[in-house]
């Protein structure tokens, strides 16, 4: 006889997957809105955030209920604690997608900046890290968690390059005050976007760490990136 509790656990997992799908899409759309200067697409990200917030609250309530009523042990216990944390990370990734979209709305009002290759790379890394974080959870694959952590170092590098490029851009040329103000504004907004992306990479890394905790009961936080099982 299948215990009712196992169905509840499946439900919890499905809720997280649902939330993960929405979050992943939010980040994809936010970055596409930025790249394609698509205000409308950005707006859908901002509007869609309510749903993700609601799911986070639902997961909180659900996990609390399962802890109180089922008194889970071992992996079940780790799964419940882990999913509560993962839902928290997802919600924060979605918040970053909203931030990116808001900055994008601002940037759309002005002519575009020159293309910054490091920004493109940062976007690629961020998207693939979120994707990996989700598949890490789906497949309970701890190896992926370590991969994600390695990618996080790349993300940090790209973020730094974006910053250096734009600082360079702000201080050089443009004697005219008006023009300079415009450059500074656009650059700062773009730097903020890069920061948001970098943040999503940290959050994806956290998700990988939670998956390692769920599947193996180990804590891989705050270890050097070369530490592998």
């Amino acid at each position, binding site marked *: 006889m299948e215990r009712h509790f196992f169905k509840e656990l499946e439900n919890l997992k499905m809720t997280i997957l649902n939330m993960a799908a929405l979050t992943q899409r939010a980040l994809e759309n936010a970055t596409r809105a930025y790249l394609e200067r698509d205000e409308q697409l950005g707006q859908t990200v901002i509007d869609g955030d309510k749903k993700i917030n609601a799911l986070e609250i639902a997961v909180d309530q659900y996990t609390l209920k399962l802890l109180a009523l089922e*008194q*889970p042990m071992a*992996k079940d*216990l780790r799964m419940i604690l882990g999913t509560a944390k993962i839902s928290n990370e997802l919600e924060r990734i979605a918040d970053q997608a909203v931030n990116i979209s808001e900055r994008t709305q601002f940037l759309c009002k002005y002519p575009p900046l020159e293309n910054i290759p490091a920004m493109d790379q940062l976007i690629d890394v961020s998207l693939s890290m979120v994707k990996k974080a989700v598949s890490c959870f789906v497949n309970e694959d701890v190896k992926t968690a370590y991969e994600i952590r390695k990618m996080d170092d790349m993300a940090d590098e790209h973020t730094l390059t974006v910053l250096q490029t734009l600082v360079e851009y702000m201080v050089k040329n443009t004697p005219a005050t008006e023009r300079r103000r415009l450059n500074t504004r656009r650059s700062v907004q773009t730097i903020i976007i890069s920061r948001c992306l970098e943040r999503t990479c940290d959050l994806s890394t956290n998700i990988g760490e939670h998956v390692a905790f769920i599947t193996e009961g180990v804590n891989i936080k705050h270890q050097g990136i070369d530490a592998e099982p």
Partner: protein
Amino acid sequence: MEKPNKIVTKDLDFFYGDFKALEDISVAFKKNQISALIGPSGCGKSTFLRCLNRMNDLIPGSSVKGEIYIDGKDIYGQNIDVVHLRRRVGMVFQKPNPFPKTIFDNVAYGLRVNGIKERKIVAECVEKSLKQAVLWDEVKDRLHSSALGLSGGQQQRLCIARALSVEPEVILMDEPASALDPIATQKIEELIHELKREFTIIIVTHNMQQAARVSDITAFFYMGRLIETGDTETMFTRPQLKQTEDYITGRFG
């Protein structure tokens, strides 16, 4: 400082006639620790517990192979006084089983059997044991009324007091709280915590949460074998073996 071993079994087998109820159990229980034995019904927990004070000797056709040491001494060896052994290794059963006597006499019984007759000493001992069992305040005004008039939880604590009265070193408990309501259960659990300072305790329980709450060490038995043993926190958060994991998360069978 590492606690010394109190009870050690080596390659222990136990048979009811031809039926091998325990197979190859080697385990050590440390002094002043609480150990919980868990496992599905019929896996041999009670059998194992009864080996530790040779209660199984009373079962016709049964036999033991292997060794059990208490404080380094083989309890199945020669020159072992079984009555003395059972005094050192007391037992509390699933169902409270007070004698149909007064509360006082229930606790005094073991003392008298052991030759302690002087009234004053007996009275002191009874009071001490009832206090240790956290029952004194509830019964001090009716020590000479029948033990059968007590509630189930009180009766169980009386049986614990009776076990304590002879100052054992080890207390074996076979599902001591299974017939009790949550409040009585909580009292017994608190009591077990208290007792660990003076005694070494081994408790059988079907209640996983109870094992998690009261014990330092948990041992998982399955089909007469000891599958996994470890500190309780690890056993309930990340057991090593899948069988253990499946049992404690209710995915068995």
